[in-house]
């Protein structure tokens, strides 16, 4: 297990300060978070029911949307005030994102999916092919499947490729949104074990979002979104 070492010299992985988010056209904000901090290499389990705003929070953390008010610093960078293009670059280079499903471009091979992410990240193309192959082996995807189109892989295989895809650029923050919701029990446990195994030798913080409190045991920190979010739930 990793030892979390909060350090003042290195900026936190995530730092929120009086963050609020409201959808355009809505009156009430869906998110109001006075303060939240995730340290480097910290693995956080964020638990909440569907509709609690956890996906919205994740998309803010990924820089896919910007807060209506408040401060949002990722890895010490104020991504709320970046241009869209800058955020795209920042995301490609520093963040890894894994969704519930449909993580891969269906018509690209497993390997090409990973390499495309490398293309938008900071990793050079030359080394990334080797690294991608190694990582795919690490998540138990046999070599024979590397060239297979993503649409021809099982859901479990696709999610494992998605981990590799998210890690190819050696990100400092991994954002994972219900990655096991489409998996059965055995596959879910295997997936989680694998995720931690792969993350073990990476200097990478993780925010893992799920509605299922049963998954949180192996994380450094467990947070309930309802404790973070002070906005009045609309639904």
């Amino acid at each position: 297990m990793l030892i979390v070492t909060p350090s003042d010299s290195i900026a936190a992985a995530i730092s929120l300060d009086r963050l609020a988010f409201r959808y355009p056209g809505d009156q009430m904000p869906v998110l109001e978070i006075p303060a939240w901090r995730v340290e480097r290499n910290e693995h956080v389990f964020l638990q909440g029911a569907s509709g609690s705003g956890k996906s919205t929070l994740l998309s803010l953390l990924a820089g896919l949307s910007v807060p209506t008010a408040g401060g949002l610093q990722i890895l010490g960078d104020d991504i709320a005030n970046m241009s869209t293009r800058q955020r795209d670059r920042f995301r490609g280079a520093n963040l890894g994102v894994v969704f519930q499903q449909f993580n891969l471009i269906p018509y690209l091979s497993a390997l090409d999916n990973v390499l495309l992410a490398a293309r938008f990240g900071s990793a050079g193309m030359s080394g990334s092919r080797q690294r991608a192959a190694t990582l795919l082996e690490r998540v138990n995807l046999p070599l024979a499947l590397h060239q297979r189109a993503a649409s021809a892989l099982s859901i479990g295989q696709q999610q494992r490729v998605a981990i590799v895809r998210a890690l190819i650029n050696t990100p400092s923050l991994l954002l994972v949104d219900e990655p096991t919701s489409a998996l059965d029990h055995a596959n879910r446990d295997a997936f989680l074990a694998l995720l931690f195994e792969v993350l073990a030798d990476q200097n990478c913080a993780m925010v893992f979002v799920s509605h299922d409190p049963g998954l949180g045991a192996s994380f450094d920190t467990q947070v309930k979104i309802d404790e973070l979010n002070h906005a009045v739930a609309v639904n």
Partner: protein
Amino acid sequence: MGSFGTVLLVASRSLRYRLSGVLLTIASVALSVFVLLGVEHVRQEARTGFASTVSGVDLIVGARTGEINLLLLSIFRIGTATANVSWESVEQLEQQKNVVWTVPISLGDSHRSFRVIGTTEAFFTRYKYGAKQSITFQQGQSFEAVAEVVLGARVATELGYQLGDSLVLSHGMADTSFSHHDQLPFSVSGILAATGTPIDNALFVGLEAIEAMHSDGESEDHRGHNDHDEHDEHDGHDEHEEHEDHDAHEDHDGHEDHDAHEVHDEHHAGHDHPPIGTVTAVLVGLNSPITTLQVKRWVDEFADEALLAILPGVALTQLWELVGNVEAILLGISILILVSSLLGLNAMLLASMRERRREIEVLRSIGAPSSFIVSLLMIESLLIVSVGVVLAVLSLLASITAANTLFAETFGLMISSQILSPSNITALGLIYLTAILVTLLPALQAYRVSRAVGTAAAAD
């Protein structure tokens, strides 16, 4: 791998993934581009082919009428002459300085719907078509005797005539003409090679033969003359006469040749000089194109008879402009076909946007900018259009080759395979421009989706 290379790779994989829909779209684009390029090409070919129906003829002279009328009558043999040119005028025209040769044409008779033309042997050497191509004999040679006929290529193939066959020429155009010239069977002395011009649809006889047909039953004199005509001796006379006449004129400026004329008149004792009272039109060759307008003015101001001289090229262009509306309509229709197929491409891309929403999310989550997604979509449609265009060009070339092997022998028509004419290249440029414009809508849609990824993902 550059950014463009990445887009190209992803785009081609994406198209292969949606192969069946993409193939249909490519087929529709290819078909419409094929139609558009084909119509445009054939249009130009028709125009140049039309413009080269006759070449090497500097002026066409006929009785005063409309310019296009005279052209239709003399070259396309459409219509009937309201007035003719007297032989005296033809002779005066021939005596004009700058006039190198004249070939009289007399028409009015037909043989099973094909027009019979009375002319001189010089027709076959003087008349040119296309890029100054001479008329060639596929078999046999020019008529020499009065009762000999030369057939255009199509006349020979359609009516199944062979060299040496004898046929009967009737008066007037109708097939069921009552006044068959049964008395005068003609034998086929030659068959012309196909030219792809109205020459293919005509029968050629000597001017004397036309005269003989028109005056049949008139006198025994002619019958005697015809017999006489067939002697080689007589042909010798004809040539002799022509040459001597000409020389005399040029040398003595039309003074002493009077004697020569009288000698001839005596010699031929009232039969074939003039060979015919009037002719329909005269094809004129000049020593230099510079003198064309000069001679034209002389003809137009000719005092003895109301004559008109036309420049075949100019008249052909005028005639083409009359027919040109049809091709404009054709072109308009093919443009509509193209636009509809490009709209089909647009519809396919828009329809795929729904299923591609996830794909765009993924691309955005790995740091792909919106510009990547927009260019991905544009490149995809440009690839579809490009493959369609290449297919269209290749199949057009194949069709032209096939058509040429099929038509060359039958109609003497050769379609040029130079399909990438400047105007067709312009058309291709416009096709691409339209394709880009048409793709802008789905591309804009993709842009919107890509910008909304964060909020859309959170909405569920």
